């Protein structure tokens, strides 16, 4: 871990906190505004890569556990980690890592724009949706006893919104890659 890795991770964790403090932003083409913090896992992986993205989320989850109200809506504290959806919060660290791991391999500087967008989108979907749900849903079943098929079918409601967030992440990550590339730089 270089000092640069630590600083990038720490400031990215601070961005994630800020995205939870500000009001949800409307997209323009759908009536529901989105909470930017919920895109944080995909953004972290796609912008600063696997290792630093996971570290940013480790810092963020640590602050949740330490009792700072850093989650959107001013939530925080050990009670949330102990609740039935605690698996999603711990899963963020793994999800950010997987998103970054895939993005680092699929996206190259100098590729054409569409391949970069496709790579970021695929990384966000696999890391930020598939992996995250693969950790969060069994956790709910194991802890709250709700049958897995009920949890899984209930979670389907969130998938369209998540896909939209993956698309926005891809666009934002490409803009950052063009303006200040960090994904592959040590």
């Amino acid at each position, binding site marked *: 871990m270089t000092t640069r890795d630590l*600083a990038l991770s*720490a*400031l990215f964790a*601070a961005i994630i906190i*800020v995205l939870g*403090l500000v009001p949800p932003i409307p997209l323009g083409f759908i009536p529901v505004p989105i909470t930017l913090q919920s895109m944080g896992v995909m953004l972290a992986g796609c912008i600063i890569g696997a290792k630093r993205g996971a570290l940013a989320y480790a*810092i963020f989850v640590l602050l949740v556990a330490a009792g700072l109200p850093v989650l959107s809506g001013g939530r925080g*504290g050990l009670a949330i980690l102990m609740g039935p959806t605690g698996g999603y919060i711990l899963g963020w660290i793994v999800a950010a890592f997987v998103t970054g791991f895939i993005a680092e391999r699929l996206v190259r500087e100098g590729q054409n724009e569409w391949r970069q967008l496709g790579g970021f989108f695929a990384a966000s979907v696999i890391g930020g949706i598939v992996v995250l749900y693969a950790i969060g849903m069994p956790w709910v079943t194991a802890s709250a006893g709700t049958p897995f098929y009920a949890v899984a079918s209930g979670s389907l409601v969130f998938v369209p919104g998540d896909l939209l967030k993956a698309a926005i992440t891809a666009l934002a990550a490409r803009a950052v890659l063009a303006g200040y590339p960090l994904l592959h730089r040590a």
Partner: protein
Amino acid sequence: MLSSLYVVGQGPLHRLSAGSKLAVLAIVGVGLFFIQSPWILAFAFALAVIVYLTVGLSLREALKRIRLTLYSLLFLMVLNLFFLPIAEVQVLALRFLALVFAAAAVTATTTLDAMMDVVNRLMRPLGRLGLIRQGDAGLTVGLCLRFVPEILARYHALVEAHKARGLKVRPLTLLGPLVILTLKQADDVAAAIDARGLRAARTTPRSSQSNERQIRS
């Protein structure tokens, strides 16, 4: 802006060390999953409620802090009623309620500094393996919290810039500049930390031994 959920107080839970509170919470968290008796779980729940409500919070504030967790719990338990016998749902609900209240009590009685001490202690084996350096956990958390107000100010400046140009605030036009400006700053911060030698020197297992030898001789 980011005030911790800690409440000032002098109760028995305040005086316990952070490490022992977290250890007890972890043990209770695991232990309760092996208990099937609704009576023992109800007792644990009642105990946790009493402990949480006596840490010095008003009832309203106390419930407000765990409201969202309680809602998600309520939702899952109502859902459970369709799939599981009532007795089992009762056990599951009591177990979670006990845990949530106990965890909220630990959060309300432990300062951020005390939590960070525990984290630094838990990280020590990683430091000995040479994976991180001593004090890295405190440094990164400190950096993160230090920059939250600045990034929030930057966010508001970007919103103002949108307004000044008659643009609507949209996630894409906001995230790009916010992230790029902040990460450029992160590079400056890293350079400044290295230039001033603020990070502890790398400690490897060998060098710490030789230090010990030097001290002894």
